[in-house]
């Protein structure tokens, strides 16, 4: 016999949860009390519940395991919403345990009451309001199962205070396995469709492999690489798929989409067959769908049927997990010994090399002011391309995505779908907690970092030595870029006036701050930062405020309608 609060902790332990990111309050005090003596679970007290969700998110992205959040009712719960929505948009497995007012007063506007199931409904994969203590173990087991399987996503478990009452004991029954008649995600693709897709791909003259975050969730980078190499296919990764196919590989044409490389967007636009693996043709990739890749036959593999033919119709849809489908396809290739048309592919590669020759990521350095691109290159050198890099949202994010070629999956951690400023730093903390021996970096900007800067305190409390690389352009740079290009340079509210002295600020929290403004000192400062292995180091790097991210797709245009540099000012 056990209390509901004890059941929560016991169930989490049984599932194998090692870390919880949370913040206490009235409705969850009983659970916190049960946690006090728990062994094998470490709880990290954050400074804001939004950050707890991002930490659990970063934790999950780096490891593939489900992240766990524990918060109180009302404001504790609502503070997690942005974090939940961020995870939902990027299909990240996470369980959020929220306290709730006692069942007897639900609906009476009790103190710190908020309908968490209702509030979170549009941004969760599923949610539960637990009404009986006996249901706690099975519900928590279901929550983790749902979060991790199929297309992963966040699941909320709302726990009213009376059901976790420490004085009332109930039998504890944890299910041997989770069975749900209404939830059985399909992972195995349809063999006939797979065969058809393969046939189409083999007949292609100008094929391209378009890889998204689903390939990372499916943990099948080796399979993808082998497949691409065997058929000599050019590969482009989405912002969410960076590292699923190595960015350092000669067949990689880089990221595609709004700020994709010239060669990636050109290759897509001119392709005759697009083989999409775990990608969802979102608007930041396709640009104007009406003009999207006019000659391409689209083969689309995704575990989520709603992602297929949502924005762009697939000619050959395959519902299934990327790894399973690709394994089946590889088997078919083994059996038949077929391959792509070598002659056609050679001509295609000649064309692609010509596009590559455009050298679209080239930029002019200066000896007076640091260029943001240069900071990322310096970071790449200092970390030998091996770091886990979390990012905030803005220009710095795009520079990170373009100038740090990720050779491995799960190394690039960013809010691709929701585009949440304030995500990067707590996500980097989550990575470091999950993988203490790794180098965990946050690329951020002067705007984004201030959206969760309070977590410097959490880092001090638990010794989480992440490295923060802040590209300080003293502006909401990405907003400013759009204003430059679309609003005639009218910088309406895109300045960050009265920025704090970041070095002093991080020092006040007990960490190390380094300011760099001289290009000549950049590499050395970067080396110094990473030499301090056990310290949180905040690099406040003053960069050129006027730099833009290029290439950039032209609004309403096709994939390959791009600006490659600042247009002449009108």
């Amino acid at each position, binding site marked *: 016999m056990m209390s509901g609060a004890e059941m929560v902790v016991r169930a989490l332990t049984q599932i194998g949860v090692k870390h919880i990111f949370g913040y206490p309050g009235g409705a969850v005090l009983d659970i916190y009390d049960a946690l006090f003596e728990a062994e094998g679970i470490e709880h990290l007290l954050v400074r804001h519940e939004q950050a707890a969700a991002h930490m659990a998110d970063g934790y999950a992205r780096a490891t593939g395991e489900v992240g766990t959040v524990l918060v109180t009712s009302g404001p504790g719960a609502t503070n997690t919403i942005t974090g939940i929505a961020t995870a939902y948009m990027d299909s990240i497995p996470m369980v959020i345990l929220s306290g709730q007012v006692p069942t007897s007063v639900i609906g009476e506007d009790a103190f710190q009451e908020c309908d968490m*199931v209702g509030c979170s*409904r*549009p941004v969760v994969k*599923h*949610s539960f309001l637990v009404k009986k203590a006996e249901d706690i173990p099975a519900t928590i087991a279901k929550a983790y199962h749902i979060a991790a399987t199929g297309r992963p996503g966040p699941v909320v478990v709302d726990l009213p205070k009376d059901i976790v009452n420490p004085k009332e004991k109930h039998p504890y029954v944890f299910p041997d396995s989770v069975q749900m008649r*209404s939830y059985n995600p399909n992972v195995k693709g349809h063999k006939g469709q797979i065969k058809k897709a393969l046939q189409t791909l083999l007949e292609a003259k100008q094929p391209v492999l378009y890889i998204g975050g689903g390939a990372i969730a499916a943990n099948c980078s080796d399979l993808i690489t082998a497949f691409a190499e065997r058929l000599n296919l050019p590969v482009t990764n989405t912002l969410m798929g960076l590292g699923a196919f190595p960015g350092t590989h000669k067949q990689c044409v880089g990221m595609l989409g709004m700020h994709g490389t010239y060669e990636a967007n050109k290759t897509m636009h001119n392709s005759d067959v697009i083989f999409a693996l775990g990608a969802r043709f979102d608007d930041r990739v396709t640009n104007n769908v009406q003009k999207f890749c006019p000659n391409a036959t689209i083969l689309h593999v995704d575990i989520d*049927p*709603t992602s297929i033919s949502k924005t762009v*119709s697939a000619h050959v849809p395959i519902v299934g997990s990327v790894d399973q489908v690709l394994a089946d396809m590889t088997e078919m290739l083994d059996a038949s010994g077929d391959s792509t048309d070598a002659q056609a592919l050679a001509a295609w590669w000649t064309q692609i090399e010509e596009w590559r020759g455009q050298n679209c990521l080239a930029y002019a350095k200066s000896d007076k002011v640091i260029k943001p691109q240069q900071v990322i290159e310096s970071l790449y050198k200092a970390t030998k391309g091996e770091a886990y890099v979390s990012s905030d949202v803005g220009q710095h994010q795009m520079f990170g995505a373009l100038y740090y070629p990720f050779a491995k999956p799960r190394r690039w951690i960013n809010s691709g779908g929701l585009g949440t400023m304030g995500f990067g730093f707590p996500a980097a903390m989550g990575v470091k907690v999950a993988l203490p021996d790794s180098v965990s970096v946050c690329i951020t900007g002067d705007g984004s970092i201030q959206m969760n800067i309070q977590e410097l305190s959490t880092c001090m409390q638990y010794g989480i030595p992440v490295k923060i690389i802040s590209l300080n352009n003293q502006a909401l740079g990405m907003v400013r870029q759009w204003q430059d290009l679309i609003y005639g340079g009218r910088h309406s509210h895109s300045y960050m006036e009265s920025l704090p002295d970041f070095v002093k600020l991080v020092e006040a929290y007990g960490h190390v701050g380094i300011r760099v403004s001289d290009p000549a000192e950049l590499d050395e400062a970067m080396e110094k930062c990473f030499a301090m292995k056990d310290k949180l180091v905040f690099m406040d790097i003053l960069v050129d405020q006027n730099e833009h991210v290029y290439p950039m797709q032209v609004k309403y245009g096709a994939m390959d309608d791009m600006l490659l540099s600042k247009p002449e000012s009108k």
Partner: protein
Amino acid sequence: MRRILSVLLENEPGALSRIVGLFSQRGYNIENLTVAPTDDETLSRLTVTTTGDNRVIEQITKQVNKLVDVLKVQDITEGEHIERELMLIKVKAESSEDRIEMKGLSDIFRAQIVDVTSSTFVIQLAGTTAKLDAFIEAIRTESEILEVSRTGVTGLSRGEKSLRS
């Protein structure tokens, strides 16, 4: 195009709000909706009438199917099917001529007068949406309509086909 989707889902609190929420969140139309438990009390059956082109309907079907509480979705308008809606309509019925007229009209439509006062009738009619619409038009020419309540469409596909199997 008008479509009727039949949805089998867990009879659990919150399941309905997930479906309704999905429709509003993704900008899909709901023309009408009915829901009640089935012969198996742990399951509910929901019927929703919606509009959209094939692409939208395909997305709606897939999105509804994706909800964790949902067991099955079927577009019953894809094949032979039966659809019914129930209407209660309260009309002014004061003069004896009006009362006779409306009784006659009800008989033609196979509607039943289920409540009678000295000044009103409540008439009950079941049928397709089109039939109910036609009845409203017809009765309007005879008398004043005081209020109307319609259940929304429910339906089943004809023959052996079933959501359960």
